């Protein structure tokens, strides 16, 4: 079930539920694009590939992954938007 609020004190929260691979990254890209650099974004992503993909993606596009947290499943990610899209 989708969540509507984050838990990590971010300015923006997105729940991508079980989106994966390219679907997840396209959705992340679209979500982050309109935000100003420096914006704190919390993301919830349930796909088992997300713990690998999200840090890799952040590194490639210039965002900073600050925290991965959120219970035993650790499905919440706190990202600071960099200067790229």
């Amino acid at each position, binding site marked *: 079930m989708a969540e509507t609020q984050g838990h990590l004190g971010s300015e923006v929260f997105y729940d991508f539920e079980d989106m994966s691979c390219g679907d997840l*990254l396209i959705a992340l890209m679209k979500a982050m694009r309109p935000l100003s650099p420096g914006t704190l974004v919390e993301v919830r992503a349930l796909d088992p590939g997300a713990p690998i993909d999200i840090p890799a*993606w952040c590194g490639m596009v210039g965002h900073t992954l600050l925290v991965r947290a959120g219970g035993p499943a650790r499905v919440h990610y706190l990202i600071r938007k960099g200067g*790229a899209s």
Partner: protein
Amino acid sequence: MAKLLISITNAKNDTDRATVGCVVANASVASGVETVVFLSTEGVRLAQEGYADDIHEEGFAPLKKLLTDFVDAGGTVWVCSPCFKKRGLDENKLVPGATIVGGAKAVEFLSTGAASMSY
């Protein structure tokens, strides 16, 4: 900028391969990589307007949405000219963002250092 050419050679003959190729292309373009989807052999059918509208693999977004997202995100779609002509497809009914090219265009892109994956 890193470069990646994703070769897709399947359409309704293997919707799994066609779909996953598009999904990986989206992962690439969303990661800031200059990405080209090169459609050849049966894959050229994906460039025909309307053809892919009913391709929806379980667990993935519909193929039409994947291609639309790819182009909207800045990806490039090249369509093999002889493959397209051989199948009698209509060059006036290409999906948005698709361009018919010869093999030289793909070779040129690869020769500039692009990596490639094939589906």
